C-alpha cells in the first residue's frame, strides 16, 4: 500500500492530515480495547464460575460416599445417644448433598453455581437423576420418624429395625456406585467445558492483540513513517534554505568552536581568505587573521554575551594580501547557556577603504590644486615681492663695487651694505619659504601653532597683491592667544581663500575705501577666532546658505571651490566657519578653532565633508559649460 502522504492539494498541511490519521488510529485502538473488555469480561466471569461447578460436582461424589458411610454408621449403632448423633450427621450430609445437586442443576448463588447450561450436561444429569433420587429417598427413609421412634422407645423390636434399615442402606449403597460413575462423567463434562472456555478466551485474546498490533503497525506506516519523512524533508528543506542563505551572503561567515577552531565557513569567507572549507575546518583563527589583529580577534571572540559592536579586523589572504573587514561577532551557546563558540560575520571593506583613501587623496590633491591656484593668483605680486630684496642686493653690491673701484675704501664702510645684503637675501629666502610652505603637498602635518604667525605669513604672501590693488590690509592680532593644534598649511589655505575672496569683492569698490581687516581673538571656549572682514560688495542675502557649497560662486570666474574647501578644512579641524554681511555692505567671515583641536584629526582631509550629503552637489549645474554664476 502507498504509505506516503497523499499528494497534498494546495495549502493542505500534511501535518494536519497526519494528525487526523493519528487520532483515527488512536480511536481504533481504543475501540479495540473496549471491544476486548466487553468480550472478555463475561467470558472471564463465566470462567470463574467453572471452577466452583467442577469443585461442587467433584464434591458431590465425596458427599455421596459420605452419605453411604453415615447410613452404614447409623445401622451399626444401637445406643440411643450415638444413634441420634449419627442420624443428625446423615441428615446434614443429605441436606448438603441435595442442595449441591439442586445447585448444579438449577444454579445456586450461595455456592456460586450458574446452573446447567450445556445440553450434554443436562443429558448427563438426566441419567444420574434416578440414582440420585433413589439415594435421597433411601436416606429419607432412614431418617423417617418410624425408625427414630423405634430407636428412642427403648429397643423394642430392635431386632427388626436393623434388618429394615439394612435393606434401605443396601439400597443406598446399590445406587451409590451408579451415581458415582455418572457423576464422574458429569465432572469430566464440566472439565471439558471449562477447557473449551479457556481455549476460546485464549483465541479471542490473541485475536484482539493481533488487531491492536495491526493497528499499531498501521499507525507506524500511515502516521509515524510519513511524519518522520515529513519532518526529515522539512529539516532538509530548512537546512538547504539556510545553507543557500549562508552561501549567498555577500559577507563572509565563520563559526568557531569554544577553542577558536573553525567549524564552518561559507564560500564567501573561503574566498576572502583563500582556503578551501576542508582546509579551514579545525584550523585555528591565526592562519587567516593578520598578525597585528590576533589579540583583538581573540578578545572579542572570548566575549560570551550579546552581540558586541562591529570591530575592524584585518584578515590575511593565503597569498599574503590583507583584507580589511568589519566583523560582527555573535557568541553561540547551548540551551543551558554554556558557551559553545561564536559566529562571525565579516564584511569586506577593503574596497570601501581604498575608495575612502582615494577620496582622501583626491581631497588632498584638490586642496593642493586650490593652493596652487591661490598662489598663481598671487604669483605676480610675489615675483615683485621677491624682486624687492633681489633688487636691493643688486643695488648694494653695485654700490660696494663702485666704492671699491674709487679706491676710497675702508673695510668698515663696506660692513653696513654687506649686512644689508645679507638681510635682504634672508628676506627673499623667507618669501620663498612661505611660498614653498604654502604650495607643497604635505598631508598629515598637525602640530601646535600660533594662529597669529599663520595670519602674518599669509598677510605677507598677499601684501603685494593688496598693494597693487590699493587695498589697505589691517591686522588686529590679539596678544594672548592660546596655541592651536592644526595643520598649518591647511589653515593658511583657509585664510588665503578668504583673503582672495575679499580681494575680489573689493575690486569694484572705490579706491579710498578698499579695506580688509584681519582680526584674531580668543573665544569664550578658550579657542581662537579669526575674523576676515572686507568693505567690498558683499554677497546677496540669499547666497549665505549656499556660500560654502561646492561649485557655488557669485563671481563669473570663480570655481566655487574655494569656500567649500575652506569649510571642509575648518570642519575637519572641529572648527566652525561662518559668513555674514556687514552693515556697510561688506562681508565678514569668522573661523573658530578650539585650542586643542579635534583629538583624532590627523590632517587627513575627510573626502566626504566637502561633498556633504546635506548639501547635494548640483551635478547638472556642474556639467554646464559656463562657470556657475548665481548672482554675479
Amino acid at each position, binding site marked *: 500500500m502507498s504509505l506516503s502522504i497523499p499528494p497534498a492539494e494546495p495549502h493542505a498541511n500534511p501535518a494536519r492530515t497526519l494528525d487526523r490519521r493519528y487520532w483515527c488510529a488512536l480511536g481504533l485502538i481504543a475501540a479495540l480495547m473496549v471491544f476486548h473488555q466487553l468480550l472478555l469480561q463475561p467470558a472471564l466471569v463465566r470462567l470463574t464460575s467453572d471452577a466452583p461447578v467442577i469443585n461442587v460436582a467433584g464434591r458431590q461424589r465425596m458427599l455421596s460416599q459420605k452419605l453411604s458411610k453415615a447410613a452404614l454408621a447409623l445401622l451399626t449403632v444401637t445406643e440411643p445417644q450415638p444413634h441420634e448423633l449419627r442420624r443428625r450427621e446423615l441428615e446434614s450430609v443429605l441436606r448438603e448433598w441435595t442442595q449441591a445437586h439442586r445447585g448444579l442443576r438449577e444454579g445456586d448463588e450461595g455456592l456460586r453455581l450458574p446452573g446447567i447450561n450445556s445440553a450434554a450436561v443436562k443429558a448427563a444429569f438426566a441419567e444420574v437423576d434416578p440414582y440420585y433420587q433413589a439415594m435421597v429417598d433411601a436416606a429419607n427413609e432412614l431418617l423417617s420418624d418410624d425408625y427414630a421412634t423405634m430407636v428412642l422407645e427403648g429397643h423394642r423390636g430392635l431386632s427388626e429395625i436393623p434388618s429394615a434399615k439394612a435393606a434401605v442402606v443396601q439400597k443406598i449403597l446399590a445406587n451409590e456406585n451408579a451415581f458415582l460413575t455418572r457423576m464422574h462423567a458429569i465432572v469430566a463434562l464440566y472439565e471439558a467445558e471449562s477447557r473449551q472456555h479457556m481455549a476460546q478466551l485464549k483465541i479471542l485474546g490473541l485475536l484482539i492483540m493481533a488487531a491492536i498490533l495491526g493497528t499499531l503497525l498501521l499507525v507506524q506506516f500511515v502516521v509515524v513513517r510519513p511524519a518522520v519523512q515529513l519532518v526529515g524533508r522539512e529539516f532538509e528543506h530548512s537546512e538547504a534554505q539556510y545553507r543557500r542563505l549562508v552561501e549567498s551572503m555577500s559577507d563572509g561567515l565563520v563559526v568557531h568552536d569554544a577553542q577558536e577552531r573553525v567549524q564552518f565557513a561559507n564560500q564567501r569567507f573561503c574566498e576572502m581568505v583563500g582556503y578551501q572549507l576542508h582546509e579551514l575546518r579545525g584550523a585555528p583563527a591565526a592562519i587567516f587573521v593578520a598578525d597585528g589583529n590576533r589579540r583583538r580577534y581573540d578578545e572579542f571572540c572570548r566575549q560570551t554575551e550579546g552581540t558586541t559592536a562591529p570591530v575592524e579586523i584585518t584578515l590575511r589572504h593565503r597569498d599574503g594580501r590583507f583584507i580589511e573587514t568589519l566583523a560582527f561577532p555573535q557568541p553561540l551557546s547551548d540551551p543551558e547557556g554554556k558557551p559553545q563558540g561564536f559566529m562571525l560575520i565579516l564584511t569586506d571593506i577593503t574596497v570601501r577603504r581604498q575608495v575612502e583613501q582615494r577620496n582622501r587623496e583626491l581631497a588632498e590633491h584638490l586642496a593642493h590644486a586650490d593652493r596652487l591656484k591661490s598662489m598663481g593668483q598671487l604669483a605676480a605680486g610675489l615675483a615683485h615681492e621677491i624682486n*624687492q630684496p633681489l633688487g*636691493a*642686493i*643688486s*643695488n648694494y653690491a*653695485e*654700490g660696494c663695487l663702485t666704492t671699491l673701484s674709487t679706491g676710497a675704501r675702508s673695510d668698515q664702510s663696506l660692513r653696513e*651694505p654687506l649686512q*644689508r645684503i645679507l638681510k635682504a637675501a634672508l628676506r627673499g629666502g623667507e618669501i620663498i619659504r612661505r611660498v614653498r610652505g604654502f604650495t607643497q603637498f604635505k598631508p598629515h602635518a598637525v602640530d601646535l601653532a600660533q594662529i597669529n604667525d599663520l595670519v602674518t605669513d599669509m598677510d605677507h604672501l598677499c601684501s603685494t597683491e593688496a598693494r597693487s590693488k590699493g587695498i589697505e590690509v589691517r591686522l588686529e592680532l590679539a596678544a594672548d592667544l592660546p596655541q592651536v593644534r592644526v595643520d598649518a598649511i591647511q589653515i593658511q589655505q583657509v585664510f588665503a581663500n578668504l583673503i582672495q575672496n575679499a580681494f575680489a569683492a573689493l575690486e569694484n569698490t572705490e579706491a579710498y575705501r578698499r579695506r580688509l581687516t584681519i582680526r584674531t581673538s580668543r573665544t569664550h571656549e578658550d579657542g581662537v577666532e579669526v575674523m576676515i572682514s572686507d568693505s567690498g560688495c558683499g554677497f546677496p542675502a540669499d547666497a549665505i546658505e549656499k556660500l560654502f557649497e561646492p561649485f557655488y560662486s557669485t563671481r563669473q570666474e570663480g570655481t566655487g571651490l574655494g569656500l567649500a574647501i575652506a569649510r571642509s578644512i575648518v570642519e575637519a579641524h572641529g572648527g566652525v566657519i561662518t559668513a555674514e554681511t556687514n552693515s556697510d555692505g561688506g562681508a565678514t567671515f569668522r573661523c573658530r578653532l578650539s585650542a586643542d583641536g579635534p583629538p583624532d584629526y590627523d590632517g587627513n582631509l575627510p573626502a566626504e565633508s566637502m561633498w556633504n550629503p546635506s548639501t547635494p552637489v548640483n551635478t547638472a549645474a556642474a556639467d554646464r559649460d559656463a562657470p556657475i554664476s548665481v548672482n554675479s
Partner: protein
Amino acid sequence: MTTTTPVVYIVDDDADMRDSLVYLMQSVGLVTEAYASPHDFFQAYRRSGPACLVCDVRMPEVSGLELYERLVAEGAALPVIFMTAYADVPMAIRAMKSGAIEFVEKPFHAQTLLERVQLALSEDRRRWDEKLRFDDLELRMGLLTDKEQEALSLIMDGSPNKAIAARFDITERAVEMRRASIMKKLQVHSLAELIRLVTEFRLLSENRTRRRPTAGG
C-alpha cells in the same frame, strides 16, 4: 650754467629697496633724498635745482603714476624713472601720456639705473639751465614798456629806424633813444646781440609752451 648740486629723489615704500638705492646713488657721489611714500615726498619736496625722481610704480595709497600726474599738475616737472616689476600695457600708456621719461624693469642692473639717472640728471640740468635762462630773459623782457615791446618787434622784423619812426609817428632820434633803452634793459650791447637774445627768448618760450602748456616757474 648753474653750479647747484643735483638731487636724486627716491620714493619707495620698501625699506630695503629704498636704502639700497640711497647707498647706490651715494656710492657714485650723488645727493639723495629718500621718502617712504608719495605723501612724505610732497611734504618735503622744494625744487631748488636739477633733480630726478626714482619711484616705485606700485605703492599703497598713492601709486607712482598718480604721484607723477600730481607733479605735472603742479608744474613741478621733474624727470622720473619708474621702477616696475611688470610694465603692463595700460600703465605704460598712462605713463607715456603723462610724459614720464623712463622705465626700469625689476630686477634691473644697478648700472642701468645709474646711467638712466645720470642721463635724467643731465637732461634736467639742461632744462634747469634753460629754465634759469628763460627766467632771466623773461625778467629782462618784462622790464620793457609796451611801446618798447612794439619797437622791439619792429626791430626784430628788420625795420629801419625811419620806418619805425613813421610807424610811431616820432622822430628818428626818439627811435634811437628807445632802442638804447631796450638794449640797456635787456643788457645787450649790439644789435646782433639783441637779435640773438630775443630770438633765444622766443624759442625758449615757444618750447615751454609747446612742451608744457601749463608749466610755470
